[in-house]
């Protein structure tokens, strides 16, 4: 490649250069947006799983009142 000694005579193709860099940054940006949407989906799923885990933790304590009711019914 030959380096320019003077720049004023060179063709001005700023628009093409800007377009090429815009393509590159747009691709990266689209990718980041897709990753962000995936991340928010994971967050939603984690919240749902957290609720499921809490329900599961509460479940073993529930039979106790039921057992008491059964015992009372048997006593009657």
């Amino acid at each position, binding site marked *: *490649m*030959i380096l320019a000694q003077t720049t004023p005579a060179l063709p001005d*193709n700023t628009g*093409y250069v800007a377009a*090429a860099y815009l393509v590159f940054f747009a691709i990266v940006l689209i990718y980041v947006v897709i990753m962000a949407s995936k991340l928010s989906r*994971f967050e939603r799923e984690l919240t749902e799983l957290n609720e499921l885990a809490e329900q599961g933790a509460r479940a073993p304590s529930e039979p106790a009142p039921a057992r008491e009711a059964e015992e009372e019914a048997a006593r009657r």
Partner: protein
Amino acid sequence: MLYGTRLRALSIATCAVLTAGLALAFFYAPMDADQGFMQKIFYVHVPMAIVALCGFVWGGINAIQHLRTRDAKYDLRSYVAIHLSLILGVGVLLTGSIWARSSWGHWWVWDEPTLVSFLIVFLLYATYQPLRFSIEDREKQARYASVFAIVAGAFVPLNFLAVRLAQAYTHPRVFATADGGLPAKMQLPFYLCLFGMALLYITLWRYEMASKNTSAKLRSLRRKLGGDEVVAPVGRSAAPSLPSP
């Protein structure tokens, strides 16, 4: 392996190196006498092309590992590598077309070996996802996709060599042999941009791997907590499925 570890540091390093590389390309590297300012496209187009081609080869290497070990993680690695290289490939074709239009006055030149060979490689890999999707059985899908990735991965350097040996040189040579290559003041920005692009590829690859692994772990957790009925069955997909951790 936890793909999400040190992702923050890697992302920061990628941004820093790419910014430095592009800043040097615009403010330190001299103007090219033939092409002037439009030669600046070179600093994004060429690194993207090199990294995309290396990514295809990396996909092939992981496919070899998959066939050797039958470990699904290598199939996933190969899939993600090829997927990312295809995305970069779109960028290479678009930026290349813009450069060709500004430099040669045409969006595409069919008798230029470098352009056509890259298009052939790109179109070859564009069939990778449909190939995977066409095979329903997951194990067969992974095996056939690995064979494809190896054969196509071997084709990439052969193709590159064939183009280097070609006689017609319309497309500029970056690492030229006879009549001078890249001037020293252009080398530093170029190599920095190349390094930055490689870092970008690695970062995105690790993000994608972390995302796929997290998805598999969430699925397994959902099954453990709610049983099989709360987990929607996996439909036909081109993406590999990881076994439950």
